[in-house]
């Protein structure tokens, strides 16, 4: 890691691959911006992070705590793995609510094809440059994006036998 004993309170925020990094329970997380996202991934691919094991998103709009709440509504989260160095790295990219788009990582990690479709399906984040951005789990004509926090959980009214009215 770039920051060790020399880092002090006033030192600039630690960076790696040109991005801000943070530590989450001992796991390394880097935070590129939307503009540097693909460029950062390219650097990471060259730095032996050849496999993207997971891509998902989080909708922070109902996040209760004010401390760790990100500024933007959505965040796309990638989990990369370096088979050579046996290392994991997490990438978190903020995606604003007003313009929920992000460049597709498909050209660098073809395995994200289905995962980006899932995020599109569940969160409505569009991936620019994705070859076939369509719903993957929900039916084609479904309205809404289920994993968004403002998407209510469905309820079926139950009438118990013999209950008053």
């Amino acid at each position, binding site marked *: 890691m770039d920051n060790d004993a020399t880092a002090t309170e006033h030192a600039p925020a630690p960076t790696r691959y040109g991005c801000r990094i943070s530590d*989450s*329970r001992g*796991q390394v997380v880097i935070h590129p911006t939307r503009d540097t996202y693909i460029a950062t991934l390219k650097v990471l691919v060259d730095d032996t992070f*050849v*496999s*993207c*094991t*997971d891509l*998902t998103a*989080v*909708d922070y709009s*109902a*996040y*209760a*705590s004010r*401390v*760790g*709440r990100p500024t933007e509504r959505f965040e796309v*989260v990638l*989990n990369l793995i370096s*088979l050579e160095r*046996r290392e*994991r790295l*997490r990438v978190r990219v903020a995606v604003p609510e007003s313009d929920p788009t992000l460049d597709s990582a*498909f*050209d660098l*990690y*073809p*395995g*994200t*094809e*289905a*995962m980006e479709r*899932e995020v599109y399906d*569940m969160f409505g984040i569009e991936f620019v440059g994705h*070859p*076939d951005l*369509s*719903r*993957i*789990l*929900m*039916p*084609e*004509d479904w309205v809404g994006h*289920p*994993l968004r926090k403002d*998407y209510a*959980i469905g309820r079926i009214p139950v009438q118990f036998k013999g209950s008053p009215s």
Partner: protein
Amino acid sequence: MTDLITATPGATAEGNQEMRARSELTAREVMREVGAVLRMTETQAATLATDNVDPTEVSEDQSMIINMGPQHPSTHGVLRLMLELQGERVLRCKPIIGYLHTGMEKTGEDLTFMQGGTNVTRMDYLSPLNNELVFSMAVEKLLGIDEDIPERAVWMRMLLSELNRMSSHLLFLATNGMDIGAVSMMIYGWREREEVLRFFQKVTGLRMNHNFIRPGGLAADLPGGWRDDVLDILDRLPDRLAEYDVLMTEQPIWRERLQGVGVITAQEAVALGATGPILRSTGVAWDLRRDMPYLRYDDVEFDVIVGSYGDAFDRYAIRLNEIRESMRIVRRILDRMPSGDYRIQDKKVTPPPRARIDESMEALIHHFKIFTEGFKVPEGEVYVAIESPRGEIGCYIVSDGSPKPYRIHMRAPSFVNIQCLPHMMRDGLVADAVAVISSVDPVLGEVDR
């Protein structure tokens, strides 16, 4: 084959998911199927599209698109494949999923960390204990108690996880045999799996969907006589596995059906994010148990089984031999099983013992609170991954400090592995399609979640 549709555009009424006939295929589309994985340029991909097929030969009335599934016994549930066929040859394949989607990740946001186990255990229903394990490990990491789990709980988790790997692979052998036509293998595989499930029933009370591994440890200690039961399984299995070798591995028809079928290269597998036996069949020795050890896997000896051709036979052989390796690990666990607590004595996550509830009002309140309200988990996000029988199963949890996960995402190995199907099937025979699906061993409950 349930449905037969000619290759007229729009005939399937599937909107964007529709697969168009080869004659109107753009280079971009071919690129999507293979090009990007092989790192090809668009022009190269365009030549590939016409490379092995003469475009004049494959006119619209000569190739056809058929739907295999979703109701097809060999699709292991409700997987649907659109296959473009020219005679017996598969030109292209597109898997379509979502038929079993029940929104389990959304449900998970509404269940407490205490209840979450019941939800995740139903995802990959063939290795429920691995699902619970990864969920529990993620929650423990968020709580910061992952180092404090008692030794006995850790070794019990390993024991259950390995036995689960055996039962899952045994079921694979059964279904793989059935798909290819070795129907007696189906009965043998189920029979052996049942031995393991009987042990699970004795330990956890249920054959499947145990919710036994919980944040903080396990639900109960091992019952009396468990060692004899495990030894009984271990003594019985080697002969049976040797039988399978005679029945299948050494049998020419079996080899003929699997060897060279559904080949995938290491480069493709890594690019697609495939893990587990699929990645290992291509020669990449990657097993999280060895490469990123969790629990006490660095204390036990086992080999990572690796194939060399990346075909269906390698994947079969890897799983068969992984059962043997798991048995080695289980034997070691029997020697090492320590005594002590089976769950952490942390009042925050552990309910009070049943006997205390009768005599202490505080214990009763505590018990009530922990099961109704749950326990609060500090804010943060964490990703934990372990090696399930099908590959890397990961759990990503975001907590905002409440007793329910703010977001829970399971990285399902089958979901990612299914993307390998188009690459494996390309230019194969339609009869081999069944063998290929079977060799990927997808669990649709986990694919669709």
